């Protein structure tokens, strides 16, 4: 009897349903989603390109042909710390961009959130929907960005130093770095959505429905 009562009292939103709803929200606001995804994509591409470029340069410096080593040694000095600053800044801009876009989304969907709460949605559901939506954009943007960043740099090296570079690609560390960049991209997109999601979940349904945007 107690068990039955417990089942009766359930208020649920399965991950599958949440995923479907988030995906639909992205599709319906496709234009804005593309912009957010592109910004994550660019940030991650930049990060991957710096990591890849450093990794290939290091490998060439250690094992590469003499003439390439000489060229690399002349440009290596001092450029690394500047790169780190640039990457950090670009990723920060990314977070701000995502937060801004998700905040817009929250204001726009005030009524929708209120309605969902009237239908029995818990705060948790609303948070889950927003985080999922952002994470989905993050996953797509990060994978595309990592791919673009890495292939871009590899092509650049090939053009600059010739086909010989292909024998000095540190494949394992490249894979590791792109994995790290993708992970960071996803984390950033989730981070950007945390505050808007929290804000949206805290609205009283009556107030959310009344608010005109």
């Amino acid at each position, binding site marked *: 009897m107690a068990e039955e009562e417990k089942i009766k009292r359930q*208020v649920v939103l399965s991950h599958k349903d949440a995923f479907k709803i988030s995906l639909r929200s992205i*599709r*319906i606001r496709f234009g804005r989603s593309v912009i957010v995804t592109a910004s994550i994509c660019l940030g991650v591409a930049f990060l991957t390109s710096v990591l890849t470029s450093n990794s290939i340069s290091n490998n060439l410096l250690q094992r590469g042909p003499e003439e390439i080593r000489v060229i690399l040694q002349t440009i290596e000095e001092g450029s690394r710390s500047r790169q780190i600053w640039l990457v950090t800044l670009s990723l920060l801009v990314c977070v701000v961009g995502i937060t801004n876009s998700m905040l817009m989304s929250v204001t726009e969907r005030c009524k*929708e959130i209120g309605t969902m*709460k*009237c239908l029995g949605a818990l705060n948790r559901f609303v948070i889950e929907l927003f985080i999922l939506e952002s994470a989905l954009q993050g996953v797509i943007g990060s994978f595309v960005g990592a791919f673009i960043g890495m292939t871009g740099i590899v092509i650049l090296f090939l053009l600059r130093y010739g086909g010989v570079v292909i024998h000095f690609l540190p494949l394992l560390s490249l894979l590791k770095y792109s994995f790290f960049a993708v992970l960071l991209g996803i984390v950033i997109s989730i981070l950007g959505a945390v505050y808007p999601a929290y804000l949206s979940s805290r609205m009283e349904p009556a107030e959310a429905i009344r608010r005109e945007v």
Partner: protein
Amino acid sequence: MPKEMVVRVMDLRKNYFLGKIRLEVLKGIELEILRGEYISIMGPSGSGKTTLFNMIGGLDKPTEGKVYIDEVDVAQLDAYELAWLRCRKIGYIFQTFNLIPVMTALENVTLPMIFAGVGHDESVEKGIEILKTVGLGDRIQHKPFELSGGQQQRVAVARAFANAPAIILADEPTGNLDLKTGKEIINLLKEMNKEQGVSVITATHDLKMLDVSDRVVWIRDGIIERIEERADLKLKVGEVEGEEAG
């Protein structure tokens, strides 16, 4: 058989703050609503109808006083229990329909069932059935913007009834509809009220609603002016509508 009480409102007060000015919207409302009753809360705009509606629906917290739904004090419920109450016990209908724009009619109706933990196939089946009942059997895959106002409100009615609630709360359900469609929605609500025995509480200033109500609660400036039984009303309806026409 003694009638069961489904909603009890005791000395309900609500204040809002507009900057530093305190606004008393509800000034001590006492109301009891029986199971299966069709109640209209009438009053001019600004009289506190919607505020009362929000309090009864557990959508807003009273400043003072108590709201009991099925003998449970709403103020004592935690977030989870409140969500459960909104999901299973109460169905809401709004003036502005408030359908989720990205979802089809069917998905809008099945959403509360998803929250209630009903399986996918079962909820779809039941959703189609309810949409047929409200006369939208051929529109289940349409998005809200592809439907007329009256049709959207029918979807909202179907959604409100999805989890077989004990109470339907309708805030100006006919406010955005023309005369004929409004009448249709009122009749639909009355039909469901009779068939399923749910209590229907509408906040409205639509006089068409008087015809189907068991009781009418008139509020003005945050207090109940008078409560009229249907029997007393019959005589007056013609009179009031006559005034309107004149």
